[in-house]
Structure formats: C-alpha cells, structure tokens
C-alpha cells in the first residue's frame, strides 16, 4: 500500500467524529426549543431550519462513528443512549437561551443569546468545514462539503441579526452586548487541545489553533460593524469537549432522550 493510500484509509479517532456530531446535535436541539416560540414567524422558521441542518449533520456524523464502532451502535444509540459524561460538545452549545442572570423559564428565553451563539459557532464552523472538505477521509470530506454550504447560510443569518441588534435600539444593543459578554468566554474552549483532535489533525491536516486568527477576524469585523465591544477573554475555560459539562446539558438530554428511552425500538 502506498503512503497516499494509507492516508486515505486512516481512520479518525471515533471521539473526534462524536465531538463534531455532538456539537451539531446539541445546538440543533437547543435551537429547536424556539420551534413554535420564535419572536416572529420568519425567525421561528429560520431557527427550525437551522436545527434541521444541524441535526442532519449530526446524523451523518453519528452514522460514520457508528460504522467505526460496530457492536450494534447506530446513530440513534449514539444520540439517545449516551449520557452527559459521554457527550463531547463545546459547553457553549449546551447553555440555555438565557442571559446569565435570568431564570431559565421558557418565557425568559433571550433571542440575542441565541443569535450571538449561532454567530460565534457558525463563524468557527465555516472555517472547520472548509478545511475538512479536503480531508483524505472520503466520507468526512463529503459531510464537510455539504455542511459548509449550510453553515454559510447560518453565518449569514446570525451575522445579519448581530448587526441589526447591535446597531439597533438601546434595548437591542444592550441585549446583544450582554449576550456577547456572557458567551465570549466560552469560546476559549475552541482553542484548547484534546487528544482526539490532535490525533485527528495528523490525518485531516486541520489544526484548530491555525483557525484562530481567521475566526478573530470574522468576529471582530462583525462586532465592529454592530457597534459592539468584545470583552477581554479570561476566567474559566470550559471543558465540554472533554466530557465535563455545565449543569445544563443533563436537563437538555433528559428532554431529548426521554421518548426513545421510554419506548426503546419504537418506530412510526
């Protein structure tokens, strides 16, 4: 076997696929909470569409992970029968749609928090998928090329809202700035390393740290246009991708997983 072929066949650490899949699923599930509760009809539809894309990406990635794992693993067992200590998503993505000091009741959902998070994550993922579409693993590259098209729309949507809110009324500006202040520290996790990312980088060629400048550019440019200030990073660095999560993920999974756990193997 030639070196090129060996690279082609190099399997990715399954944890890396799960990390990508969990990110997509957790944010997809979170954003789906707006379904039927959007501030206006168009945004209700937009956020549901956004979720559909993310859950679709998660399915493809879980299928790929399940194929590697064998032992009866399926996309469903991975999504519905793993628990908090198994999930490897960024902590940012599991936070509820609330400003930091609000209660977590549904009526306190904050649209600015939702859109700022979508912006921060989409700005990262356009860069990630853009690189991974050239990965030697055929299926991962195909998923990346597909996801890149979708996340471009997500970035455009969330960035437009960031500008509209930031450069809007005093109320919308205040909410957008509060959301940026609340969420920005969680993005520090994008740049910490993990064993599975380091191992994956050897075959995919994607070094996350190399994306930081580009991400900063996208974020800083949008914040400047939105007349928002970027808070200094610092403080606690989250560890979701190492499977150590905030208190919020468990509640979200409980809601998401209760049906398949109550009725295993149910079909419709």
């Amino acid at each position, binding site marked *: 076997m030639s070196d090129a072929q060996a690279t082609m066949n190099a399997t990715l650490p399954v944890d890396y696929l799960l990390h990508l899949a969990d990110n997509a699923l957790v944010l997809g599930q979170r954003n789906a909470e707006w379904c039927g509760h959007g501030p206006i009809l168009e945004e209700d539809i937009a956020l549901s569409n956004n979720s*559909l894309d993310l859950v679709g990406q998660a399915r493809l990635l879980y299928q790929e992970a399940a194929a590697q794992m064998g032992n009866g693993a399926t996309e469903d067992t991975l999504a519905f029968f793993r628990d908090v200590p198994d999930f490897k998503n960024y902590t940012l993505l599991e936070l509820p749609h609330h400003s930091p000091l609000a209660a977590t009741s549904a009526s306190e959902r904050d649209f600015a928090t939702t859109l700022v998070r979508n912006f921060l994550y989409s700005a990262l993922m356009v860069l990630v998928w*853009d690189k991974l579409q050239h990965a030697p693993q055929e299926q991962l590259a195909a998923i990346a090329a597909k996801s890149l098209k979708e996340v471009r729309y997500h970035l455009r949507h969330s960035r437009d809202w960031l500008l509209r809110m930031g450069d809007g009324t005093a109320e919308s500006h205040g909410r957008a700035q509060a959301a940026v202040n609340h969420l920005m520290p969680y993005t520090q996790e994008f740049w910490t390393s993990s064993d599975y990312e380091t191992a994956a980088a050897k075959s995919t060629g994607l070094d996350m740290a190399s994306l930081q400048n580009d991400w900063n550019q996208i974020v800083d440019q949008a914040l400047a246009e939105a007349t928002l200030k970027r808070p200094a990073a610092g403080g606690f660095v989250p560890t979701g991708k190492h499977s150590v999560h905030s208190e919020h993920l468990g509640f979200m999974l409980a809601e998401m997983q209760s049906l398949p756990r109550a009725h295993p193997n149910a079909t419709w």
Partner: protein
Amino acid sequence: MTTATSASSTVLQQSAVEKAWALLESLTDPEIPVVTLRELGILRDVRTAVAQDGTEQLEVVITPTYSGCPAMGQIEDDVHNLLQAHGLKGKVKTQLAPAWTTDWITPEAKEKLRAYGIAPPHSGADHDCQTQSGKANGSGASSIIQFAARSASNPGRHEQLAVPCPQCNSHNTTETSHFGSTACKALYRCLDCMEPFDYFKPY
C-alpha cells in the same frame, strides 16, 4: 456460468435499468410535486450492482439536498415502493459527494418551479462554491469573511441579482427571511403586486 447466460442476464439487467429509469420519471419531489426527482438532480443514477448474496440487482443513487431535509426518507420510500410494485428488486444508495447543488436543476424544472409560484434559483452556485474552496486552500477565511461582510454592508451576490416575482415578473422584490417554508427556500415579497413568494436558494 456460461457466456451465453451471463450475456442474457446482462441484457435483462440492461432492460431493468431502462425500465427503472422510465418508472422513476414519475416520481416527484414530496414537497414540490411539479418537478421530478431527476429534474431536481436528486436522482443521480440507476445501475446494476452486485448484492451481498452475489446476485445482480438494481441500485438507485440519490443525493440529498440538505443534510436534514425531511423529504429524503420519503423519497427513499417512494423509490423502494415504486420498484417493488413493478417487480423490480433494488436498493437505494445515498451518495453525499459531490454535494447536491441547485445548478443540477434542469432548465425545464426551473420553468416549472416558476409556473408553480416558486422563483427558481440563480445559476452559478456550484461555480461559486468551487471558487471559494479553491481560494480556501490558501487562506481559509478570506472568501468567507468576504461573503459575510458583503451580506451586511454591501449587498452580496445573492442580493445583487434581482429575484423576479413568479406572479408578475417584477424585479422590484425584497427578501423577508433567509429561511422559508423548507430548508431550500427563502421568503420573498414582491413590492409591485405585493404577493409573498418562495425563492429556491442558490446552494
């Protein structure tokens, strides 16, 4: 196996492939029933493949539009049921690469979309993506930052190209929402006849 039987089985398979193509021509998109799966570019290929038990069977290749498009399950079922109803054995293979693009929608189908009340996508989505990924090899963000900045301060490509109203053909239209009734569409409004309409996003 003798040469004669293998040749006749190939002929049989050949006719099965042709029959399947003809049958599948009747399958329309579950969400947009005026266009066929072939016209949308979802139906990629019908061919024979060797099954696990060693026999040759039909393989219908489809490529999903959006990752989470809920119509894909329906489409797969529709293909299965249609083949089965006509005594053809086959399986559906979902193929992700190359990724589906609106540039695969045939000109005839675009016209049907317009007549149905959906503004068809501008062409060039595929070219645009290739250019961007080409650039991306050098500097990952440049194309993406440009894309994002364009959409905010300067109108970008999607905004620059007028989307003609499918009802009155006016170019005086405006986008209401990036996301419409399905993942593949955006919501628009005509400022002349005031009708809201769907625009199939270039993708």
